[in-house]
């Protein structure tokens, strides 16, 4: 069976790899090609006692050598399981990532030392298999078995293990990057994107897998492998869970509200207060607008700004590294000035300076000709001095004739004093070096005063020298073709890559913002969409219908007859709901076109949020009762804007009479979703 799989007639003149992993075994089992768990058991059955472990196989090999040359070697199943062990190599709780024998031992049912003792023979069989393939003249495929320069014995199975467990973990990160969890992506597209993503040795992929990626002739095989891996991915697991990161604190100054407070940046997808957990004496809330956690207590003190602090919550810590000067820029989302790590070259900014450092900073700013305004008497910022710098103030700097004060140097823009790459059409960060779109190579920035005023640009082993006139050298005309480039300038070295595309037809995060609509609120603005809103939003020219039934109404008590009036003349459906039945759908009309429901009675309705997956009411959603007006209310599955407006008016009127506004929000959300 394995002989047909690896060296069958269809493999003639093709490179063949004896690649076996758990996924292949599962596939074979499910497709019925192999009987239930045959390989490992049959190999174990062929083995002898620990001292004569391989003797039974050796005698079969001796018999095979006397037979016809075309027969498949009897050691092939044993070699296949050695590859299976190699495919399982990765860091785990019990075994080191490089421990090969420790992984093969449980498969063969004996100790690692016994296997190591006999592995010389197995390595010899790998060489023998290579020779057998070469003797076949390509009719059974072209061998890819190579001797490892260092790992003389286990190098053979490693050379055949295309995908290791460690590769799978890295591939999951790539699948997330490529948006496989959001849309189906073909193997060909994935393979093209992977070639761009895994740019160098820092990708975390094994050398064997990287060599597969680097071989253009193996692209079809790569496509098959990544497609199978993507299919097997649950769309959620990405690598090994890591310890939650600290939340960097930022200072927020809101002059209009005359307050100064600490906020902490929340990572994407992390809920507000839960991100921090509990800590005695510390109170946090989610800041308006989301994305930030607000530290309610302890309150802001100027000395904390200078000395730094850490608030250790049960889940994450909020940390501020002390500094004697703190730049702040305007953040409209937070309605005030927010601290940043370094001064900005082009934005209007505030600089908060500790009292003892103020005289040095002030005189340096003045001597350098940097325009600023000394702001005094700001409530909430006692103990600190404030300088307001207009946009682009740092660009007009003259030589102050002396060294910059330490407080200022710590927050001075790095790029102003060091050479670096600026601008360019930078692609989404992949696994390795900075990558730009072809035609969008960055500019090289070389600050005035640094010597020499020339840069070396290297690619494909060729180096050319270029003079830097002024402070900037445009690299886009010098680096035009796809490939890797290195720029050496003033003792610094920068590497980047140019690519024609990422390989994906559509960016994974496209379509994340849209207009969901609504009534009586400011929701008719494009905003970040939740997954369930994607089906009912305007995104560019993509106008999607809302899901047929986001929120359902639940009726209780009374008589129960509904008339559903269809689009076609005379189409009338009468629905009798038994007395006491817990619910009947009204707004959940799922028919295409307009379906009207006319009520012939005055029931009491309960609104519950059924928009959760599985359409089950949330346990904590408290139902709120209200009474609809008498018969004649018309509900449509595809309401016109004026009908929605009419309903909103009705809902508002009803809510005004109710002291409980929870159902109002719920109802409005249901209409917004429509």
């Amino acid at each position, binding site marked *: 069976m394995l002989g047909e799989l690896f060296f069958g007639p269809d493999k003639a003149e093709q490179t063949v790899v004896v690649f076996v992993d758990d996924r292949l075994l599962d596939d074979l089992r499910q497709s019925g090609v192999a009987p239930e768990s045959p390989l490992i058991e049959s190999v174990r059955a062929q083995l002898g006692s620990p001292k004569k472990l391989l003797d039974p196989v050796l005698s079969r090999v001796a018999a095979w050598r006397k037979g016809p040359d075309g027969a498949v070697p009897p050691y092939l199943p044993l070699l296949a399981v050695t590859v299976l062990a190699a495919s399982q190599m990765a860091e785990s709780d019990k075994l080191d990532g490089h421990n090969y024998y420790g992984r093969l031992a449980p498969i063969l049912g004996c100790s690692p030392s016994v296997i190591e003792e006999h592995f010389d023979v197995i390595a010899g069989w790998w060489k023998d298999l290579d020779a057998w393939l070469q003797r076949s003249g390509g009719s059974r495929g072209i061998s890819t078995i190579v001797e490892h320069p260092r790992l003389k014995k286990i190098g053979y199975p490693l050379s055949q293990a295309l995908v290791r467990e460690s590769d799978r973990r890295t591939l999951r990160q790539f699948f997330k990057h490529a948006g496989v969890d959001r849309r189906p992506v073909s193997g060909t597209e994935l393979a093209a994107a992977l070639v761009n993503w895994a740019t160098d040795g820092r990708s975390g992929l094994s050398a064997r897998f990287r060599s597969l990626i680097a071989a253009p002739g193996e692209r079809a095989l790569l496509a098959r492998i990544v497609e199978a891996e993507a299919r097997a991915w649950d769309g959620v697991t990405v690598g090994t869970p890591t310890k939650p990161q600290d939340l960097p604190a930022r200072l927020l100054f809101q002059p209009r509200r005359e307050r100064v407070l600490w906020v902490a940046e929340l990572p994407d997808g992390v809920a507000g207060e839960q991100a921090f957990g509990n800590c005695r004496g510390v109170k946090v809330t989610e800041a308006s*607008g989301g994305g930030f956690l607000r530290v309610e207590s302890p309150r802001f003190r100027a000395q904390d700004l200078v000395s730094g602090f850490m608030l250790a919550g049960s889940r994450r810590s909020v940390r501020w590294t002390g500094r004697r000067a703190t730049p702040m820029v305007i953040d409209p989302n937070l309605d005030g000035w927010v601290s940043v790590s370094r001064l900005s070259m082009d934005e209007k900014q505030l600089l908060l300076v500790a009292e003892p450092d103020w005289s040095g900073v002030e005189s340096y700013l003045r001597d350098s000709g940097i325009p600023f305004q000394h702001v005094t008497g700001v409530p909430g910022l006692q103990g600190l001095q404030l300088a307001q710098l207009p946009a682009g103030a740092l660009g007009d700097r003259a030589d102050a004739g002396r060294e910059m004060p330490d407080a200022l140097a710590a927050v001075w823009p790095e790029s102003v004093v060091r050479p670096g790459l600026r601008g360019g059409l930078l692609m989404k960060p992949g696994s390795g070096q900075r990558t730009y779109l072809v035609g969008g190579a960055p500019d090289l920035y070389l600050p005035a005063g640094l010597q020499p005023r020339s840069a070396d640009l290297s690619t494909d082993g060729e180096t050319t020298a270029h003079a830097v006139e002024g402070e900037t050298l445009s690299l886009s005309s010098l680096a035009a073709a796809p490939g890797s480039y290195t720029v050496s300038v003033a003792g610094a070295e920068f590497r980047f890559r140019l690519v024609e595309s990422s390989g994906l037809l559509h960016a994974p995060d496209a379509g994340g913002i849209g207009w969901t609509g609504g009534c009586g609120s*400011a929701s008719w603005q494009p905003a970040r969409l939740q997954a369930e809103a994607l089906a009912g939003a305007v995104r560019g020219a993509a106008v999607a219908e809302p899901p047929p039934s986001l929120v359902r109404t639940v009726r209780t008590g009374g008589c129960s007859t509904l008339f559903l009036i269809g689009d076609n003349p005379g189409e009338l459906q009468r629905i009798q709901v038994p007395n006491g039945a817990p619910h009947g759908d009204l707004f959940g009309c799922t028919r295409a076109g307009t379906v009207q429901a006319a009520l012939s009675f005055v029931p009491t309705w309960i609104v519950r949020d059924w928009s959760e997956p599985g359409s089950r009411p949330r346990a904590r959603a408290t139902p709120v009762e209200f009474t609809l007006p008498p018969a004649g209310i018309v509900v449509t599955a595809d309401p016109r804007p004026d009908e929605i407006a009419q309903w909103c008016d009705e809902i508002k009127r009803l809510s005004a009479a109710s002291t409980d506004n929870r159902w109002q929000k719920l109802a409005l959300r249901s209409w917004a979703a429509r």
Partner: protein
Amino acid sequence: MTECYYDSWPDQLFGWASERGSGDLTSFGKTYEWARHRAKPGWKPRDRAAAFNGYLRDLSVLGLIEVDRQARRWAVAPTTVTSLPASDLGIVTGGRTPGLLKALEGEAVSSMVDMRKVLQHQAPRAILVRPRRRDALSALAEAIGAIHVSCAARLIAARLPRLDEGEWSEAWAPEVPTDEIDCFDTSLLQFVPAAYRPVNGLIRYTEFGQTKFLIGDCGVWRAVRRDAGIFLALAQENRTVLEWRRRNGGELRVPRAVRLPALHERAAVLCLGTLPAEDGLSLVYGNVPDDVASAISSTLEQSGSHPSTGGATRAR
């Protein structure tokens, strides 16, 4: 050999945006400036922010990107194939990565549609397609992994918000001196310094370096966006500035000083797939059928410009 799909900075910049998928406005703005400088060394606009916002606005009304200004984020719109109203033509909008452009130029696509790229001033080219068979547009969408929408202009027009829903937020009392306030003059269609403390109409002032717009109704003020605020102010005085003519499949004329709100403008732009033409002091949106024009004018309370009346007089 390297294939280059971009021969102008707007196309190249949008190609890059399509590859990125989404991001924050600050870094997009920096990349925009870099691309402009690279295309024309020494480029220095009078107002950098206005130039970038104009580019974003053009991308948005063409259905190429969406911008969440409050969160300062942008995201490329999903690639969409849709047909133009009252026409057998279609357009391809939304993200266009180099890979997608390559697929569009492939043999499989050329057997379904004839494609034409229309050059636009400081905006990415419009991609128009003429189907070769009846179901070609949906087949094209399937071939390139795009969304197929029957007629985006009509679908958006049917969902346009009215001025009184969602274009303003909570009540707000402007705490700025009168001499820092500008009022919108509905006759001149421009802002002029306030001569006295207003109680009605649209005003603007600057706070934290940002221009704020408020619409007043008998002393009650609400924050609005500029474009919606102008139409609210016009509605207060029953002034009509939109003009629709039946010729050339329908022509909607809008004074340049009064741009349509973003979603309204997108409905108008997607009727032809290209940005409006400039004609003197007006912007002219072509191929706008009467039902789309009617939806735009009624939701902006420009009832005097209803197509059935054959157009109306613009404010002086």
